[in-house]
Structure formats: structure tokens, C-alpha cells
């Protein structure tokens, strides 16, 4: 018996027009936390799909515990002790938490026992979850918990985690890391995919770096700086966002006593939120997922209307206005959900550019849509935000998450907003793209716009915002200057109340 759990030799997988993985060779030791690093589209997901039996390699071989390992389907992989936490596409909205978990298990126990086990595991690992809730009403953070608990219930030998912490608070991340370290000490190996390089440095023993489908390097992440790791991924160096001192101008957006009832049974009501934001200012809003982030964005964007007097832009009451009217006076928004909310998945980039840019970019003339202007606008976004796509005629869904996010943010930034509201602007986006998006938001503020960043990524908020407030069950108690705020103080502001279910 060697001390290797899983070893991959020369794995290659090609799709028409692109080689997703090219001769990838590495090994994961027993009880090792192994990071897989790479930009969006570097071939990480194809690689883990091969390990999980969803994709068959064109060539190359794998061994698990020194036995040849060729999973034909995920069921076989699970039977061999390989479990996976997915980033997308593996939860069923209309079904309960318990049903979702049962579907990921080979031989689930009776429903009552399962509910009991779920409660037990979720307590042990500090991931509170009600087994009888319908998944459709859960926040992104809670959905992730469903995925994680689904795996933990199977006592896996190898746990594959694709971006597991992107929606957790620092405290929750700490608890998760404790769990993972506990699993590691019990001999479980973990293959960990994340864009958060600090996390990888804190948690992982070894890192394998993929670039354009090829393995480019292996290193011990603790010995490298986050910046070195990022540069190994990208292959070149890039600039981290530069902030400069800005003079604040007049109050652009004024929110006073904003209270909006929850729009659906699973939503959070906004309660008495007040703030002013000035030209040139970046306001950061943190908080655990599901504490009113989506509701705040939709209340500001005009998707839900607010009572009169609560939202004013440059003194004008816009609470009752719809999204298009608000856009015309300079209030633009980029929601969290890229596919389906910020962009229409099956429409082309040109059409998506038309949808929010129509009024401010003058893409409509005489009541008719001017497609050539829309195409120019889309191409301008693609060029200035380095969106990697064959062209503006491609459907939004064909872009990787990071590229689509750059497009969505770019589309709003290039409309010269007076006030821009973004929710989770760099969720699931690789380090280089995230840096570019943050830089764009800083530049926008430098040009005199007011920017509201709602995010669960605290590093991001610390990096770019001037003032910070935390959403807690629909309330924001206070806003404090970001400078000098410690991560513990931020954690306290985000509050314990939001983590109880």
C-alpha cells in the first residue's frame, strides 16, 4: 500500500474545438487536502467530472488505492468512496432538503432517520439546515450546505469540493475548515477547488495548477504568496486594484427608513434601512446570504416598488418608479444571478446589451431597435472588459461565469451610471477577472459615481469599500468607515442571529 489515494496518469479529454484536459498527471495522498487551481475554463471541472465518473477520459488512467479506477458513472464513483460537492446544477428546487440529500445517496435510510441524521451532521459541522424546507426557497449559502451535508453523510474517502466557501461568512468558513481538517485527520482526502487563494494557502497541503487544460505546476501553497499563486494560474502578472483617495461630492442616493415586505414566502423583509451615499463613494454591504441581499437589490433597481419618500436620487423621489425609469435617471443595477437575472441565457450578447442599455445608450430610434448600435455597444463591452468570447452573436450561456460577469458589470459601467448597485460582483470569478471587475468599480467611483457593493466576499468589501454595513434579517444597524475595521468586528456586525435556522 502506498500513501497515495488517487493517482491520475496522462488524463486527456477533448471536445470538438477544444482540448479540455491535456495529459494531466498528479496524485492525491491519503488524508491530503489537495487544491486544484486555475482560471475559469482551465479544465478544472472536466477533470473532476472524470474523477466523479461523469465524463470518460479519451486516454490516460486512474488508480484508487492502487486499484485501477474507471468509474463508468457517478454511482460507481460514490460506491468507491468518491463524493462531490457541486458548484452548479445538482439541486432540485421543488423538492425538500431531505429528498435532495436522499437523491445523492446510494442507500438512503428511511425518511425519518434521514431527517435525524441530517440534523445531527448539520449540528456537528455547524451547518444549520431544516430537512423539511423546500430547496427553492433557500439562499445560495443554504443550498451549499445541502450539497456539503449530502456528501458528508456518505463518509467519503475522497471529497471533491468545487468552490465550497464562496457564499459563507468568515465564521462559517472557519467552521467548515475545522470540519475539513477533522475529516483530513480521519484520513479523508479532499480535492479542493477555489478561487480564494488565501483559503487555499490556509487549508491545502499541495496545489496543482492547470492552465488551458495542461498541468503547469505543483507547489505547496503555504510557501507561496496569494499573488504568486494567481500569477501561476494566469501565466502572467496582473495589477491588483488600486484605490486612490477621492473627494466625496453631493449626496446622490438617499435611502430613508426603507421597509419592504418580502415578495415571496421564502424571502426576507427589509426593515428600516437608511443611508446616504455621495458621489465618489463606495458603500460595502456584507451579511450572510439570505438576510435581504436580493431584496435590497430589487428594491433599489425598481423590480419591487417602495413606498413614497423612502428612495430618493438627487432629491427626486423614485420609490414608485420601475426599473427603466430609474435607469434613465442614472440608477443602474447588476444582480447576483448572472444567468436568468442579470442576463438572459439563450439570448446573444448583443441582445443582452440591448436589454439594459437601450435608453441610456440610445439604442432605440423611432421606436425601433437599432441592432447595429447594440452590436457596437456589445463589442465595446467585450473589448474594454476583456470578455473572452468569439463574438457578440454568442449566447450568454456559452460564456464562462467569469467572462459573463465581466460582461454584465461592463454593460452597466459603460452606461455611465450616477449610482451603480451590484450584488456579488465577483462570485465564482477567477482572481484576475475579479481584480479587473473591482478595478472597474473603483474607477467608476473615481469618476464621481456612487457605487453600492453587496457582497459576501469580505476581502472584496475590505479592498474596495469606503464604508461598511451588514445586513442582518433585513436590517442594517449602522454604517462605519471601512478603514481600521478588523475582520472580527465585521463578523460581529454580521451577527450571530443570521446563522441560526
Amino acid at each position, binding site marked *: 500500500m502506498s500513501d497515495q489515494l488517487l493517482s491520475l496518469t496522462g488524463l486527456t479529454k477533448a471536445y470538438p474545438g477544444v482540448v479540455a484536459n491535456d495529459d494531466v498527471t498528479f496524485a492525491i495522498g491519503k488524508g491530503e487536502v489537495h487544491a486544484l487551481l486555475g482560471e475559469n475554463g482551465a479544465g478544472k471541472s472536466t477533470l473532476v467530472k472524470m474523477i466523479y465518473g461523469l465524463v470518460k477520459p479519451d486516454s490516460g488512467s486512474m488508480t484508487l488505492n492502487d486499484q485501477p479506477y474507471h468509474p463508468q458513472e457517478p454511482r460507481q464513483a*460514490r460506491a468507491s468512496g468518491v463524493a462531490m460537492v457541486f458548484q452548479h446544477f445538482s439541486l*432540485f428546487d421543488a423538492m425538500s432538503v431531505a429528498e435532495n440529500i436522499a*437523491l445523492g445517496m446510494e442507500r438512503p435510510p428511511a425518511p425519518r432517520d434521514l431527517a435525524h441524521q441530517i440534523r445531527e451532521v448539520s449540528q456537528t459541522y455547524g451547518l444549520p439546515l431544516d430537512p423539511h424546507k423546500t430547496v427553492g426557497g433557500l439562499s445560495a449559502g443554504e443550498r451549499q450546505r445541502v450539497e456539503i451535508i449530502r456528501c458528508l453523510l456518505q463518509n467519503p474517502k475522497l471529497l471533491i469540493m468545487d468552490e465550497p466557501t464562496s457564499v459563507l461568512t468568515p465564521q462559517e468558513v472557519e467552521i467548515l475548515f475545522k470540519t475539513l481538517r477533522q475529516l483530513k485527520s480521519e484520513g479523508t482526502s479532499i480535492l479542493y477547488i477555489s478561487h480564494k487563494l488565501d483559503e487555499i494557502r490556509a487549508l491545502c497541503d499541495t496545489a496543482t495548477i492547470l492552465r488551458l487544460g495542461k498541468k503547469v505546476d505543483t507547489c505547496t501553497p503555504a510557501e507561496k504568496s496569494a499573488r504568486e499563486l494567481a500569477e501561476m494560474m494566469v501565466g502572467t502578472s496582473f495589477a491588483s486594484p488600486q484605490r486612490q483617495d477621492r473627494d466625496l461630492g453631493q449626496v446622490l442616493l438617499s435611502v430613508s427608513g426603507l421597509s419592504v415586505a418580502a415578495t415571496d414566502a421564502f424571502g426576507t423583509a427589509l426593515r428600516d434601512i437608511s443611508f446616504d451615499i455621495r458621489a465618489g463613494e463606495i458603500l460595502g454591504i456584507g451579511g450572510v446570504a439570505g438576510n435581504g441581499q436580493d431584496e435590497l437589490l430589487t428594491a433599489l433597481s425598481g423590480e419591487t416598488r417602495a413606498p413614497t419618500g423612502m428612495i430618493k436620487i438627487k432629491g427626486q423621489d423614485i420609490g414608485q418608479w420601475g426599473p427603466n425609469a430609474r435607469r434613465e435617471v442614472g440608477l443602474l443595477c447588476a444582480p447576483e444571478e448572472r444567468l436568468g437575472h442579470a442576463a438572459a441565457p439563450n439570448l446573444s450578447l448583443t441582445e443582452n446589451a440591448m436589454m439594459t442599455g437601450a435608453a441610456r445608450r440610445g439604442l432605440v430610434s423611432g421606436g425601433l431597435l437599432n441592432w447595429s448600435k447594440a452590436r457596437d455597444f456589445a463589442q465595446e463591452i467585450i473589448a474594454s472588459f476583456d470578455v473572452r468570447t468569439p463574438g457578440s452573436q454568442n449566447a450568454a450561456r456559452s460564456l464562462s461565469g467569469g467572462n459573463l460577469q465581466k460582461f454584465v458589470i461592463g454593460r452597466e459601467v459603460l452606461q455611465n451610471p450616477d449610482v451603480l448597485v451590484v450584488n456579488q460582483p465577483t462570485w465564482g470569478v477567477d482572481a484576475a477577472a475579479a481584480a479587473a471587475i473591482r478595478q472597474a468599480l473603483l474607477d467608476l467611483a473615481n469618476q464621481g459615481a456612487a457605487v453600492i457593493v453587496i457582497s459576501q466576499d469580505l476581502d472584496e468589501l475590505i479592498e474596495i469599500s469606503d464604508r461598511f454595513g451588514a445586513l442582518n434579517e433585513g436590517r442594517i444597524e449602522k454604517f462605519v468607515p471601512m478603514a481600521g475595521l478588523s475582520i472580527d468586528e465585521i463578523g460581529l456586525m454580521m451577527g450571530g442571529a443570521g446563522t441560526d435556522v
Partner: protein
Amino acid sequence: MDINPILLAAAIMVASTPILLAAIGELVVERAGVLNLGVEGMMITGAVVGFIAAHESESATLGFMGAALGGAAVSVIFGLLTQFLLTNQVATGLALTLFGVGLSALVGQGYDTTTQVTLSKMPIPVLSDIPVLGTVLFRHDTIVYLSLILVAAVFVFLTKTRAGMILRAVGENHEAAHALGYKVRRVRMMAIMFGGACAGLGGAYISLVRVPQWVDNITAGTGWIALAIVVFASWKPWRLLLGAYLFGGVTALQINIQAEGLDIPVEYLSMSPYIATILVLVVLSGGRAPGSLGKIFHASS
């Protein structure tokens, strides 16, 4: 007015059975995420195959078995086209209806007679002697009982069994089900064949029990009603039972009223089943369609 309410209630169960059978089959198909608009075509295929099988073998049982097989056989055409050749489900379903109507007219040539084969009533001992209820509920033929058992069985299957949970998962999000390693196509093919068999039974109930004879286009739109009831019942078996009986009930009632010669225009009476069913089910509605309903599944990864 001398409509006997007890006999009317018993007639309602007979009138509703074809719709109920076809609808419960389609409900399972749609819960698996497949929209098969070919119910009418599968019903009429079942009607003609069932009639011929019963007529030739002089056995109603063999007739219904033949009908179920016939319905399932044409549904396999739909399944192969939509699940393996990835054709559009709406267009394929419509084509299946046109195909079924035409095929049945061709196959049924020379059988446009009445049949001597009858499906005997099967009164349930003891229960059928209960006054009123006994006549209404417990003096029917086996297929009426079968249809009710099927509704209960589908309910139990969908809510209480693992196989049913997998079927719902496939219908809710086929990408996720695939990612977890479930055989989306296999589940869907089985659901489609179940739907075809149920529609076939429903069609044969028309040609062997309600009419009973073979004439072209004998199902006369029953399959479309079944499809509509599945949607209005929010894909829930018990609501589907309510919807089918309500529709069958108002249909039977308005025919009785017409026969009585009441002073209500016939047109209003004829539209009453549709309006009543829609109204009641809209008031009750609140469900949502299976997430992957009608979408093409392409196992790309």
C-alpha cells in the same frame, strides 16, 4: 325533472374513466419532464386495437391488454424521437396525434360494427349492498376500479417511493439528475410507455364500454381534455381525480338536462363542463410545472 341522482352519479364514474386513465398516465409522463401532446393519438390507437383484439378473441380482458400494448407501442415512437433523436416535443406530440388518428382509421376498416363482447360489472360483495353508495361506487366494471387504484398507486409511487422520487428529480432538473448519475432517458422512456399504456386503456374503455363500437375518430378530443386536466390539476394525482370526475360529471349532467328538454340553449350546456372544470381547478391551483418540462435533454458531458 326526473333525473335519478343515484344513476347519474354512477354514470358519472363511467363517463369520467377514459379521461382519468389518460390523464393519470400523462401526469406521470409530465412529472418526468416530458410533454407528450400525443395523448389523443395514443388513446385512439388503444381504442381501435382494443376493439379488434376483443372482437377477435371475444375476450374483453385481452382487448384491454391489447389496447395498453398498442398505446405503449405508439408512445415508444414518440420516446425514440424525442429522447434519442432530440426532436421538439410539442411538434412530435402533435404529429403523434395526427398519426394515431390516421392509423386507427386505416386499421379499423372492416371493423365498423358493434361488438358482442362486454365487460361485465363486478359488484364488490357487501359494499355494493350499501344503499345509495353501493350503487354509486361499488357496482362498476374492473376498469373503473383499476383507474381509481392507478390514481392511488401513482400518488404513493410519486410521494412515498424512491423510484418516484427519482422520477420527480428527473422532471425537476434533468441536468442535476444526470450529474448525480441517474439515467434520465431510461426513466423518461419508462414514463412515456406508462403514459401510452394508460392512454390506450382509456381509449379502449370508450370503444368497448361507453359506446361500444368502432367508428372513426371515436375519442373525439378526450385526449386533449386529459392533457388540460393534468395542467389544471397542478400535476397532483388527487386534484386530477377531482378534475376528471368534475368534467365527466358535468358532461353527464348536461346530457341529462338536454334530454329533459330544459329551456337552456344547448350551446351553453355543451360548454358547461369546460367552464366548470376550469373554474374549480383555477381556484384550487397553485402548483408549478416540473422544472424541466418539455425541455430537450442532451447528455453533453
